[in-house]
């Protein structure tokens, strides 16, 4: 992949994360914020793998896997908290 | 019978074995579990060095002993060629539906006027195992315009971004009908 392509790809992903973060700040209810945070985390998982390819570091795949697991656990924990409190 | 078994399962979860009197697996499902865990280990380490292989085998044996009861309670049916065929058909349909769903959502998001007509409807399922209902709910979530909000017994609460039918029968046919045929064949 040439440098331009990498820049375009990461730019699009960054724009997506930025829109999610805007929703995170604006969101009228707590659920909106939780959804925005969860979406941003999933997008970040993909971004980590892409960055691993750009920098040619295999370790990023492990980081991304752990990040995916933590996103899942975090989303479920927030959902339980919203449902009936901890 | 189906009324009794599809009753409420949420409050407590003692979960007896698979309904319908299917045999509870035994040695064969235990070996399947070990093979599955070992495959996951191989993919995660992605190395065939003999030390890695020995540690992986030992760890998958320990994990299989620890997880055996949970796995049996899932009620996975034994694998037969007929089931495998149905699973492949199911996966193909699911992949096509996922792509259609994404194009659909992308069109709605890009459209300047946001052409949505959302609503919440109820559909009914005839599946009985929890794992089958889980797969059905996940598939519904990933297909065009529908999103599973809740499951109680044999009824699913669905958020539909473009409501086309409000009564239970039509909605069931439109939303769940595509997958339920195959899932019923797989989990019978």
């Amino acid at each position, binding site marked *: 992949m040439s440098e331009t392509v990498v820049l375009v790809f990461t730019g699009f992903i960054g724009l997506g994360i930025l829109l999610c973060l805007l929703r995170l700040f604006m969101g009228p209810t707590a*659920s909106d914020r939780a959804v925005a945070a969860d979406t941003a985390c999933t997008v970040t998982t993909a971004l980590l793998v892409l960055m691993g390819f750009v920098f040619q570091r295999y370790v990023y795949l492990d980081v991304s896997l752990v990040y*995916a*697991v933590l996103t899942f656990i975090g989303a479920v924990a927030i959902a339980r908290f919203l449902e009936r409190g901890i | 019978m189906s009324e009794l078994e599809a009753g409420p399962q949420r409050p407590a979860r003692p979960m007896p074995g698979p309904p319908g009197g299917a045999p509870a697996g035994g040695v064969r499902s235990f070996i399947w579990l070990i093979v599955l865990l070992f495959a996951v280990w191989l993919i995660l380490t992605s190395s065939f060095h003999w030390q890695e292989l020995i540690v992986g085998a030992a760890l998958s044996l320990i994990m299989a002993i620890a997880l055996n009861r949970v796995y049996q309670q899932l009620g996975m049916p034994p694998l037969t060629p007929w089931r495998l065929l149905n699973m492949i058909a199911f996966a193909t349909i699911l992949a096509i539906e996922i792509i259609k769903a994404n194009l659909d959502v992308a069109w709605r998001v890009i459209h300047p006027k946001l052409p949505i007509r959302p609503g919440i409807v109820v559909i009914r399922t005839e599946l009985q195992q929890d794992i089958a209902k889980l797969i059905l709910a996940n598939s519904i979530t990933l297909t065009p315009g529908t999103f599973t909000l809740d499951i109680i017994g044999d009824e699913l609460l669905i958020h539909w971004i473009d409501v086309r039918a409000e009564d239970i029968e039509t909605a069931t046919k439109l939303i769940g009908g595509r997958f339920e045929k195959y899932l019923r064949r797989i989990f019978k």
Partner: protein
Amino acid sequence: MLLEVLGTVVTGIGVLFLFLGGLGVFRMPDVYNRLQAGTKCTTLGACLTIIGVGIMEPAWFWKTLAIALFILLTNPISNHALGRASRKSGVPLCDQSVVDRTDSFMEKSGEKEQ
């Protein structure tokens, strides 16, 4: 060379869907519609991006496939949990909604649970 072009194209489609997921979360009017856009687009987008990287770097393929499968399995579940939580905590539907069968569903479930 061919693999690299193919991988770039697959990654590009995935990146586009990731962006559209973010846009959907930003534009949609209420939580449930946001969940629709967020779940579908990010699931396929993340899977395609990750598998595209696996195609470009064949030695990584199996691991990327494992990550993609994990996302494909868990993303719907976590979003389903968020949706159920927002319905139970009483987030209202948006004004354009045409039908809401939650009440009959809850009534029936209450009867069943007793």
